[in-house]
């Protein structure tokens, strides 16, 4: 194959990868509103926070983050939510590792981690964020639960 064509193919490949990456970046971490979402069953979730079982939702909003052991962006996401929690005591962050909780992965149709469910004060799912949440998506969610 002539060098020019080979070069063109490789450049095309790089462009394709760049386009895929740009589309992924654009789509990941955005909140999708859920109509008539279900109410999260806390006893079934068996989530713990600082060693204690979580039994109550956040007074304003709860961010329920599903993580896995091979997920590098889950940690950054958890830190983001923890920082948020420190500034507002009516915001709760719950993190659940689904690596060995495939029942939960199946129930919530989770294919990627982190996946974050946004819950109102009754624990009803109102939005879903696939991938590491964008700062703007979190702010928008907080805004929608403003008191």
């Amino acid at each position: 194959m002539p060098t020019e064509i080979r070069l063109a193919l490789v450049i095309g490949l790089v462009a394709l990868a760049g386009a895929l990456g740009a589309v992924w970046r654009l789509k990941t971490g955005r909140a999708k509103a859920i109509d008539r979402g279900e109410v999260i069953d806390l006893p079934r979730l068996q989530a713990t926070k600082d060693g204690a079982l979580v039994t109550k939702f956040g007074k304003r909003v709860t961010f329920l983050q599903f993580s896995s052991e091979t997920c590098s962006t889950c940690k950054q996401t958890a830190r983001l939510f923890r920082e948020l929690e420190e500034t507002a005591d009516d915001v709760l962050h719950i993190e659940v590792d689904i690596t060995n909780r495939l029942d939960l992965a199946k129930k919530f149709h989770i294919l990627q981690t982190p996946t974050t469910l946004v819950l109102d004060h009754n624990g009803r799912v109102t939005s879903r964020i696939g991938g590491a949440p964008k700062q703007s998506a979190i702010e928008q969610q907080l805004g929608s639960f403003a008191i």
Partner: protein
Amino acid sequence: MSTQIDPRGPRFGASITATLLAVDVFLSLDHATFAIAHALLGVITVSFLWGALRGPAKHPYGLLFKKLIRPRLEAPKDLEDSAGPQFAQLVGLLVAGTGFVLGIFGIEIGLSIAAAAAFIAAFLNAVFDYCLGCQIYIGLKRVKIIR
């Protein structure tokens, strides 16, 4: 088994791997240079095998990062678990290894396609911080391809 590492290390490694894979695709597209491409993909496959078995921190690229790049950077905000990048190396091993085997059977286009696929993953990892462990690990577990 897993350790906490600087998340920029695996991305540095991925940029080397992506560059090598782009060169490999270029070389594989001409019959005259196919043997070189085959050998290069062999080296890349071994590199993936190393990463999959011993983890990114003990990989030559990881050591290179620690010695040359890390001292010039600020401390990372978060550390990540090495399990994620190690899983990505395993995926890379399967794809590059498949291409290498196809090369043995003289299926040149098969090698080119495998190298191109591995390139896209490595490029996305290096440039966009795309993490295979976040995107496909739970999905593969759910369909029981991995345990």
